[in-house]
């Protein structure tokens, strides 16, 4: 018998106020430790889906269950990496990374240690004493990831975190993210516009179509972890890339007549 799903979305729909449906009829069952990417044309509700999973907003109808409980109740186990770095400008980098730990009442010495470790992990060990304005956009994003990882979340929700980074940095952070996950496993939900990124990271890519957002295709990515940079050059990877790109194109074309 297969293990019960860790995260379960059942006929989830969301509309804001009296507006049109942003998400409609989303069904998905995600196993513990999976890495799921959402990809789709803009306006397909990818970010909304992530915020639903974080318990930041409630679905209009349908259910989201994590470990069999409503998403909002388990948000302690999840952490969010926002589209923007979202750092507190008056706190130094290390203090920003420590923030979630401080808010939950960890000892000062423990959280200092943890923050430094997380900063080392994202390659910003030297920047601990800087203020956010002294960092580049990419560096700020890394601080934001270090902050999310500091609480050792069971579920990590990432909303296009690497969208603003150059490709080399993005690739490296992709590899780093998988390396971290190898050591300290978490279930990940990842929103991106990059097919290559989605395929490289994920166990499963969910392609959404827009207006309203629906699941257009689900693509299993069976490559074993640990995945390394070498994976990107294999024919199997390139083939998966092609399949995903076609699915994304189909999902985008399907909604074109509406516009």
């Amino acid at each position: 018998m297969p293990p019960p799903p860790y995260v379960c979305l059942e006929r989830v729909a969301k509309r804001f106020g009296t507006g049109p449906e942003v998400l409609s009829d989303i069904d998905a069952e995600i196993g513990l430790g999976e890495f799921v990417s959402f990809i789709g044309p803009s306006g397909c509700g990818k970010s909304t889906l992530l915020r639903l999973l974080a318990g930041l907003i409630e679905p209009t109808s349908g259910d989201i269950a994590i470990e069999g409980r409503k998403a909002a109740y388990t948000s302690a186990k999840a952490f969010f990496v926002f589209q923007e770095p979202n750092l507190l400008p008056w706190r130094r980098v290390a203090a920003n990374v420590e923030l979630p730990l401080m808010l939950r009442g960890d000892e000062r010495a423990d959280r200092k240690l943890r923050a430094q470790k997380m900063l080392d992990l994202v390659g910003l060990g030297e920047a601990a004493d800087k203020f956010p304005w002294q960092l580049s956009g990419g560096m700020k994003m890394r601080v934001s990831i270090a902050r999310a990882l500091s609480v050792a979340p069971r579920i990590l929700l990432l909303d296009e975190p690497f969208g603003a980074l150059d490709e080399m940095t993005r690739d490296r952070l992709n590899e780093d993210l998988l390396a971290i996950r190898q050591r300290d496993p978490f279930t990940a939900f990842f929103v991106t516009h990059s097919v290559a990124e989605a395929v490289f990271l994920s166990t499963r890519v969910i392609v959404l179509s827009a207006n309203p957002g629906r699941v257009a295709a689900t693509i299993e990515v069976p490559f074993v972890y640990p995945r390394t940079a070498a994976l990107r050059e294999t024919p199997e990877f390139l083939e998966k890339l092609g399949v995903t790109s076609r699915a994304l194109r189909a999902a985008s074309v399907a909604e074109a007549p509406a516009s």
Partner: protein
Amino acid sequence: MKRASPWVMPLIGGVMLVALWYAVIGIFGFKSYVLPTPISILAAAVHERQALLAGALITGEGALLGFLAAVAGGFLLALIVALAAPLKQAFYPYILVFQMTPVIILAPVFVLWWGQGVPSIVAITFTICFFPIVANTTMGMISTDRNLRELFVLCRATRLQEIRFLRVPAAMPYFLIGMKIAGTLAPIGAITGDFLTGTTQNGLGGLGFMTIAYFSQLKIPELFATGMVACLLGFLFVGGVNLLHWFMLHRWHDSQRRNE
């Protein structure tokens, strides 16, 4: 082109203004009780230095105490308002009513309650300084970035943690703007207060009362000298607040940084 010292242009401007001043007196033949010359004002300031210093101290004391009370009270009220939206809805209109009531009308009431002199001056200064601090700080506390608030929700921060680690620091620039406005108003408020409630206790009032005295004696150069001292007092206040502003924000806030 080599950049001139920042003092050069203001100095040239000042010399030109003084020249214009003398020219006006020369052309129109104003008597010194209509428009005294700058030199006679300076002479009056030197001559009356003890009275002016004593007056400035009284006014300064009233301004400082009223200002500090307004800063503390205003911040506290903004904090309460940020903590509880219903309280804001319930009482904010009445703060406005209090603010809209002219000081001229409140002044006699204050004298009735606290008598003439410093306590009433403090009360009037407080009345004038209070509102800009409340309004600005409240604005700062309720306009925190939505994304940052979500971050705190995700961290399951308590309301008190959100206030302490997010709302208050985020409101600091607004609070300091409120303080800047209040800082420019405080000496004016104190002089107005003194003007309205001043006393001749010990033969001396504050700068506000001295203007009444000098005017009634037609000591116009002395009157101008009083204005000069009041002006200096104002600069002292604004300078102090600016210093505080810099101290609080220079490490992180955009307003305090040069573009690199």
